[in-house]
Each structure stands twice: as structure tokens, then as C-alpha cells.
């Protein structure tokens, strides 16, 4: 989720936040990027900086006390967005016999339920292909599972938590996203659960940096499209996100947030737009009568947006050379729909495709402007709008490359929508 245009670069807000969070130490995070040498340490004490988190002074003695501070199982991280709830669950695989005996029945049942199914209820889904194997977290080894369900099914989830006596496990449930605030009281009253609420942008960045650092085998976490402007030669290629700063992080959920990230602890929200994944789905539902993201995408893949949009060549008969506008560029999204005849001749698939193209291109152009204003050349797109949405990713890659004349590179991450939830889990394991 995201909002319109708030830019956060003031340094006054930090005072409220710094006491509640401190970063992990680098030692604990194998493969974690080193921040610029000395940049943090060199900052004079007490100086107000625009960083969201300021220092890591308390982190260094943590490794000794890992065991002591390790929270009890189960380990969850949750991100409750406007449309989807994202849940990550760490399944320990190194459980000793002693532990097995001590493990309470509730805990065992939750673990079995989550790991033996790939679908929960009517709408819950475990993204098995994203599962991370043999991960070491807080000295424990196990698998990280990625689960999602629609936010409107949260009551069913809470009911399940109540039925399984989740509250008896005395675990802290770390949650981020707007829903952590909106549904806090529901968690308490319906499931007797106390939420530990976390800032969604903090979690997002923490999650992105962590996942990218721990994925070493299997498909590369970060990738890009080679030859984005040539459809026939456009292929997905792995990308090593070493020394990633500065980067522009564009999170496309129901809405869009655009963050400029200068270091692990230094970022600002540049702007956002309300034209996001929610807009795509909302308009598709109204225009085509579909009801799910998958349906909408399926229709879009079959449609032709040029029947709906008015192109530059529709107006000028070809390129508008005076301004370097190619004939194929969209001059007016849905512009052909001003004509009654054309409205009657387009298919639902065409409309779905045009909606997808409109929203995607718009995100692309706002992103490009932010990159120029912030002087950043690398853009990482995340968020569930991109899930199974190669069309949009290729469009974004194309738009970044074409309009910047090759200056901007669009990068994508495999765990596109789960970073907030991962960040929340990390907060549970390494509380600030």
C-alpha cells in the first residue's frame, strides 16, 4: 500500500522512533552488505540525521546473548496490506529429540498444518516456489515459508488462531502494514493476541536487504530483463545486487510507495501514487466483471490495448517527430473509448490489457521522474502487483530503458510481495 506524494526527509520525526528500533549487527547476517566504511560510525553522536534509524551502538554484544534473547517458537512475520495479508513462517528443521518432547501440542499442530498444506481455507495460499530451504536464523536452521490470503479473510484467520489456541503459546506476533493498526483490536478480542506493530517501510527495506543477502543457491533473487526494448530478444537474467546504494525502491501494492534508499539505515519516502495494483484490479472488476487478480491478468494477457488507447500515430499519422514521440507511444490511455463505435467494438480482454498498460506505464513514468530528481540510476520494483505479472515487469523494464535512453535499469526480486513480512519476522528475532 502507498500514498500520494509524501516526502519524508525531515529529521524531527526520528526522535519518536529511534528508541524502538536498532539495527542488527552485520556479524549476525551472513552475506549482508557492508555499508559504506565508517559512514555510520563517523556520524557525530547526537547529531540529528535524516536517517530513520541512526546508530548501531547496542548491536555488537548481541551475538553472545543470541540464545538468551531467542524468542520461543513459532516464528511469524506478518504484513497486513490493503488487499493481501502476507505471512512468513519459519519452520525449524533442527529440532532435537529433547525439544520434540517439550514441544507443546499446539505448536506441533500449527507447524504440521502450515507445512503439510499448500492451500488454507478457500483463499489462503502457500507460495511453495518461494520457500527458502536450510536457512539459519538466530542459530536455528529451517525453512522459510511464504503464505498469503486476502485481507478480507482476516476474520477467518483470527478464528483459526482462536481454535488452535494460538494465544496459549505466548508468542509475540510481529505485524506491519496498515492492517496491523486497523485490526489490532480484532487480534486482541477475537484471538486474544497482542500485536507488535511495526513500520511498514522499515520492514520493507529490512526484508529486501535480508532476503537478497541470504539467497545463494537456486534462482537468483534479483533479476532484470536483457534487451528490454526488443520483445523477441528480451530475456530474464540474474543480477547481483552488490553495493546496491543508492537505489530507488518502488513498492507496488494496492497503491505505490517510492523510496530512495541511501544505505541500510538511511532512506526516505520520495513520493507515492494511488494508481497501483488496487486500481488495476478495481478498474478491471468494474470494466470486465472479473473478481480476482489472476482472472484480470489472464484476460489482460489475451487482449490488445491499442484498440482501447489512442496512439500518437492515431493522431499524427505517424511519429510526432518535432518532439521525438514515436507513433506507437500511447497518446491517450483509453482515448479511443471516447468514440461510441469503438467502445462497442472492444473486448473485455482489450480493456483489461489497456488497464494494465495504463497503470504500469504511469508507475514507470513517475518512477523515472523520481529517479531523475533523486539522481539514482537503479530501480528495484517489488510488491504483489508484479506477482505472476511478467507483462508489467517487461513493460516497466522497457519504459525505464527506452525513456531514459538506457540510463535507468529496472530490477525485480523473486519474493516480490513478502519483504514487509520478512522484515517483521526479523524484528521478532532481533528486536531493536
Amino acid at each position, binding site marked *: *500500500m*502507498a*500514498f*500520494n*506524494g*509524501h516526502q*519524508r526527509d525531515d529529521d524531527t*520525526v526520528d526522535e*519518536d*522512533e529511534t528508541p524502538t528500533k536498532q539495527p542488527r549487527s552485520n556479524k549476525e547476517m551472513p552475506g549482508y552488505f557492508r555499508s559504506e566504511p565508517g559512514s555510520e560510525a563517523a556520524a557525530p553522536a547526537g547529531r540529528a540525521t535524516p536517517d530513520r534509524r541512526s546508530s548501531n551502538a547496542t548491536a555488537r554484544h548481541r551475538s553472545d546473548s543470541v540464545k538468551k534473547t531467542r524468542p520461543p517458537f513459532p516464528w511469524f512475520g506478518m504484513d497486513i496490506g*490493503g*488487499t493481501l495479508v502476507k505471512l512468513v513462517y519459519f519452520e525449524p528443521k533442527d529440532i532435537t529429540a529433547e525439544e520434540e518432547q517439550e514441544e507443546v501440542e499446539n505448536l506441533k499442530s500449527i507447524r504440521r498444518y502450515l507445512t503439510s498444506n499448500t492451500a488454507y481455507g478457500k483463499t489462503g495460499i502457500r507460495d511453495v516456489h518461494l520457500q527458502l530451504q536450510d536457512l539459519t536464523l538466530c542459530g536455528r536452521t529451517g525453512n522459510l515459508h511464504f503464505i498469503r490470503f486476502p485481507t478480507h479473510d482476516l476474520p477467518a484467520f483470527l478464528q483459526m488462531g482462536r481454535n488452535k489456541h494460538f494465544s496459549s503459546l505466548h508468542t509475540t506476533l510481529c505485524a506491519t502494514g*496498515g*492492517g496491523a*493498526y*486497523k485490526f489490532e483490536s480484532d487480534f486482541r478480542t477475537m484471538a486474544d493476541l497482542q500485536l507488535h506493530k511495526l513500520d511498514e*517501510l522499515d520492514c520493507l527495506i529490512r526484508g529486501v536487504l535480508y532476503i537478497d543477502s541470504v539467497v545463494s543457491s537456486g534462482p537468483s533473487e534479483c533479476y532484470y530483463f536483457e534487451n528490454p526494448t526488443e520483445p523477441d530478444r528480451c530475456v530474464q537474467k540474474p543480477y547481483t545486487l552488490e553495493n546496491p546504494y543508492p537505489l530507488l525502491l518502488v513498492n507496488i501494492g*494496492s*497503491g505505490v510507495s517510492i523510496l530512495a534508499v541511501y544505505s541500510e539505515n538511511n532512506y526516505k*519516502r520520495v*513520493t507515492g*501514487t*494511488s*494508481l*497501483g495494483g*488496487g*486500481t488495476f*484490479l*478495481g*478498474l*478491471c*472488476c*468494474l*470494466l470486465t466483471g472479473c*473478481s480476482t487478480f489472476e482472472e484480470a491478468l489472464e484476460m489482460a494477457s489475451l487482449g490488445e490495448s491499442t484498440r*482501447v488507447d*489512442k496512439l500518437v500515430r492515431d*493522431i*499524427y*499519422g505517424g511519429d510526432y517527430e*518535432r*518532439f521525438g514521440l514515436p507513433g506507437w507511444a*500511447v*497518446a*491517450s*490511455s*483509453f*482515448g*479511443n*473509448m*471516447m468514440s*461510441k463505435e469503438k467502445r462497442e467494438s472492444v473486448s473485455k480482454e482489450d*480493456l483489461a490489457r489497456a488497464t494494465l498498460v*495504463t497503470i504500469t506505464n*504511469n508507475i514507470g*513514468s*513517475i518512477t523515472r*521522474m523520481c529517479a*531523475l*530528481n533523486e539522481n539514482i540510476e537503479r530501480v528495484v520494483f517489488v510488491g504483489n502487483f508484479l506477482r505472476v505479472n511478467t507483462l508489467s515487469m517487461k513493460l516497466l523494464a522497457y519504459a525505464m530503458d527506452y525513456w531514459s535512453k538506457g540510463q535507468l535499469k529496472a530490477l525485480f526480486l523473486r519474493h516480490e510481495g513478502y519483504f514487509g513480512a520478512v522484515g517483521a519476522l526479523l524484528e521478532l528475532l532481533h528486536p531493536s
Partner: protein
Amino acid sequence: MAECSGIDSNPSSHTMDKSITLPPDEIFRNLENAKRFAIDIGTWELKTFGIIAASDKLYEISVQEEVTARLHFIKFENAYIETCLDFIKDHLVNTETKVIKATGGGAHKFKELIERKLGLKVDKEDEMTCLIKGCNFVLKNIPHEAFVYAKHADSEFRFQTTNPDIFPYLLVNIGSGVSIVKVEAEDKFERIGGSSIGGGTFWGLGALLTKTKRFDELLQLASKGQHTNVDMLVKDIYGGSYGCLGLTGDLIASSFGKSATADKEFSKEDMAKSLLHMISNDIGQLACLYAKLHNLSRVYFGGFFIRGHPVTMHTITYSINFFTKGEVQALFLRHEGYLGAIGAFLKGAEEDNPNQYSWGENYAGSSGLMSVSPDMNPMQRARSGTFDMLEMDRLERQLVNLPLLQDPSSYIPDTVDLTEDALAREYWLYCFEEALDGVVKRAVASQPDMLEAALRAEKFRQKYRHKLQTLRHQPFAYGSLTVRSLLDTREHCLNEFNFPDPYSKIKQRENDVALKYYQKAVKSLEELSWEERQFALVRGVLAGNVFDWGAKAVSDVLESDPEFGFEEAKRQLEDNSGVDIILGVMPFVRELLSRGTEVVLASNSGPALNDVTNGELQILTERIAAMDPVIQAGLRDDRLMLVQSGSSSPCLDLSRLDKVLAMVVRERQTDLVIIEGMGRAIHTNYYAMLSCESLKMAVIKNSWLADRLGGKLFSVVFKYEVPAGKPSQDCETSTPS
């Protein structure tokens, strides 16, 4: 350069009001003297048709034969293109024209039709070039062209003062798509970006969602809807605000985010509103990003999406305020719909070098902003047969700032802005309506030999009354409403019905009488002591100032008592002098000259009420010089100069003065400016700050105004000002009056 082709032979065609339904041939018949034309054809909306016509004026008395070239622009619907072309064929093609300039997306589509109908070659001009040319033109030439829109303010429209320094600026043109153009100089501009989400998206997507076909109807729907039923707000996700980012709960997090469901119905109004917000916010955001990247603070919005629609101006303004936190203001243009046509026309007239002229909006011939109010009749604005017009009079001179203005960029000529002051507005509108009978009578009397004068005067009455009524409902129709604009509108309406100078006879009669008294008056002044004489001179100027037919209090007396004259006026002021210029100003000038002071006497370029024009003043001064060696020597030695002000108004805009006057002021290092008269020193320039000493003098000839200023009718204003930091000095100077 305009070739006049005789008096407009069909004054009856003037009777229509320019923004109501009319047979198109009548609209076009107006333009029989047209010399040159250009056309702007939108893809599917209105066309604008620009034409230059020469109309010469009936002007019996002055030695000048004033010929005014006038630019006419007409906006009309596609349906009338053929009628328009027929008219052009019948009336214009017999000139040497071989090529017609055309622009707009539709130029492409109608090229063949135009070429076939007219046998002319269509010369397509680049749309954006024309748009920018037109934009530069209106920003430079039309006062109060740009405005800020504030829906909930006392006056929705806040007009910007004209600043000759218009560059650089950003023009965001919202047509079916959006073009964002950075303009750095007259011929230097660049399309720096754009967006495909524009007016076409609102219209196309809106038509799909609501089954409502017309753009205006969609806007109507939107103005009634609740976007919160369709949009996902921050509070829908957070339950409240997202405090640590400072995002309030009412912000839209995801446009149409609530409609992502198959089992709920949404109202047309709500969807239209949500769509309008989505598109306006998106355009506003992009505009801000571009403005920031290019470091520009002036951002103008235009295109059919804006075109005077309060709904879209409001949402765009809101978006700009939000994204820039108030640092950038969204600016709109009164004549935004004419830019392409103006630009195309100027392209065609390039060999004439339009920059050597100045232009003024003719209030009589132009339909105002929102000529048909969307609130009064929402559906009428785009109904077939609606014509919008803009007419501009060309002055063969360039108008510039008075070099002595302390801060030209903040100078506002008018003392009271009637768009903001409702009480004053009511009074003055009433006042002008009350005075109308007298003006009509005067107009008829001024042309005793012309039989149809009464008919024309009646048409003038209808037209001006209608203008006043329009202004009562839409004070913003022609920019800021001021006493000056009301006076100017009356002059323009009189002109339109061939009463260019209803007072010429009276002026002549008065001048003749006054000339007889001149020598006597000078003699009696010379007999006074120096100090007595100074008082007498000032009283003389002020007494002369009473002879003002524009002021109702005075004209009532003058009309009712034909014997009332100079003697009465002087008694009223308890002293003695002559009729304004001859017995008031000239002796004053004479005194200055005899002290060795150089005097620049500035007067109107064209007639307005009974104010003396430069042409008349030339003749009068020569006649006086024949009687008076002091004046004669002054003229001979170039110590007395008569210069035209560039104005044809009873008021004075010091930011639009004749270039020659400005040059003289600079060359002669003028160090005192005297402004005389109610129109020039009270209604305008009362608060004007000059960089040299100034003297503003007038008699308050209006009881309401006298009350407002805390005085009585016929009180005297004598305002001597020394700019801060300058020591007061003796007046050793010249006096534009």
C-alpha cells in the same frame, strides 16, 4: 498595415451577444473587412478561427482618422466548419491569400475539405508551436490573463497582475493526453514530458464506467459523487492516519481500491468522481515532478480538460497544493481555448512583426470567462450554436511600464478590486446602470445628423446593460472587475456602435468657450502674489476637474442647468479657474515653464468620456501658443512636450504606457509625476508607489466614494508623496497629467 475597407456597413450584426445561440452566418458576417485569417481545428472539440479585420471609426471632429485593426477569434463547434468555410470563400478568398494557416489535431482531418472548398493551400502549423506562441501572446498582452482558482474563497478567481517578464514557465496542456512544455523564451520551448493519462482517459474510461457519453455530463456526475465509496483511503487500510509519515487518513491510498470486488454496485457519480480525482492527482503529481526537476515555479494548465471547468480547476489546484505543499500555484488562463488559433494567426502574420504593436482586449466584443455559466445551465456550454469570441484591438504602438514605478511587478493600477469587495461591486454596478440613460442620451445627441443614431444608441444600451448583468453574476468574467474595467467596457461598447467619441461636440464647445477666457485667466493669475498664485493654480486644476461628464453628480447638474458652468464650479470650490485643460492645467503648466521647469504633458491616445485626447491637445496647445508667448517658447525650445499616454480610458494603467512616453520620461530624467483626475488618481493609482516624487490630485465627484474615503462630495484629494529615503524637494519637474 491594416487596409481599411470602409465603415462597417452592417452595424445590426453587432447586436447579438457573443456567447449565445445564433445563426452562424451572422457571427461570420461580422468579419467582412477581414484581411487575414488562420484556423485551429481541435480533433473533436471546438474550432477556433482567428481573423484580423480592419474597422475604421466614425470620427468627425478630430483631425485624426483612427483606423484600428482588430483581431477576432471565434470558437465554434465542428458542425459549423462548412458555414465558416463558405463565409471565407465568399468574403475573403478574393484577396491575395493563397495559403491558409491551420493547426490542431483536426487540421490533418479537415485539410482536404478546406483545400477543396476554398481552393487554397492549407499550411499546417505545428500544434505545440502555435499553442506556445498564443500563450506567450496572451500572457504578455492581456491584463489579468492568468488566475489562481480557489473554490472556497470569497472570490473564486484570483487574477495575476501582468508581468512583462513571463519566462520561464511550464505549460501543462491537458488534451486527450498530457503534454508538459517548458518555455524559456519567445521561440525557445521544449516538450519535456507528458502522460497518456489525460482528458481522453477521463472521457473514455468515464464513458465505459458510467455509460455517460458526453464530457460535460461526466464532469457533472463527478461533481455530485463521493470518491470515498470507490477509493481505498489511508484510513481504510490503517483504521486512521499513518502518523509517522504524516499521511492523513483521508488521503487516497489506492484509486478504485474498493471496487476490486464483483459483488457490489457503485454509483455513476461516485465512479466519475473517483476517476476525476485519480486523473487530476496524477497530472498534478507529474507536473510537480517536472517543475521540480527543471526548477520552475510558474505552471500554467490548459487544454480541454481544464477549459474553464471549475471542477477540474479545483481538483488540479488541490493536487498541486498537495504535492508542492503550496510552493507552486496552479495557474489557469482566461483565453486558454484560443491559444492555438492566436498562435497560428501570429505565425501567418510574422512578416508584420506583431511585437511592434500592443494589443488590448475588447470587452465589448469578447465573451467572458464561462460565458455561459455551467452552474446556471450545465448543459449549454457545449451545445451546438454556442459561440465564444475574443476580440483584441491593435494599437500601433508598444506599451511599456512607466520607468518610475517603484516595483513594476507588484504594481496594481486599480484601487479597489470589485471581484473581492462585494459591497463596492454592488454599488458600482448599480451606479453604472443608473448612469446608462444619460450616456445613451449623450450618444444620440452627439450625432444629430445621423438618423439611425437613436437605434444604435438603444443597441448600445442593451449591450452594456447585459454586460453589467453578466458581471453581477460573474464578476470574474473579464479578469478583475474594477471601476476602470467598467468604464472601459462602456467605451468599448460605445465604440462598437459607432459612438467613438460622444463628447467630441461638447468638448469642442467647451474648449471654444474656455479659450476665450484663457488670456483673462492668465492675466488675473499674474496679478496675484507668488503664494496666492500657487493656491489659485491648484484650485484651478481641481475646479477644472469637476467638469467630468462621467460623474453622475456632476452630469446631473450639468444636464439640468445648462447655464451651469465655470462660475458655478469655482463657487463650489470657492475659487476661480478655467475648464479642466485650458483653464486648469495650462496655466499650471505655464507657471512651471516660467520657473524653467521642463514639462511633459501626457494625454489619452484615444477618446474616453470628455477627457482630452492627445490629438485635441495638440490643436489646443497651438491655439494657446498663438496667444501666449510662454507656451510658445516652451514648445519652441522643446521644454513643453505633448506626448500620448497610450491609453483610451478614463483611468490609467501605468504598466501600459506608450513606449515613447516612457522613453521621454527616462531621457528627461523626470523627477515629479502629477496625476490628475478621479479616474487616474483615485480609481487607479491611488496607492501607486513611484520612485520619484508624485502628486495625485482629484475632486471626489461621487458621494459613495467620498463616504468610503471618509469625506464629502466634492472633497479634494491632494496627495503629495516622496519615496522613502528621498528628501523632499521643490518641484522642479515635468508633469504627465
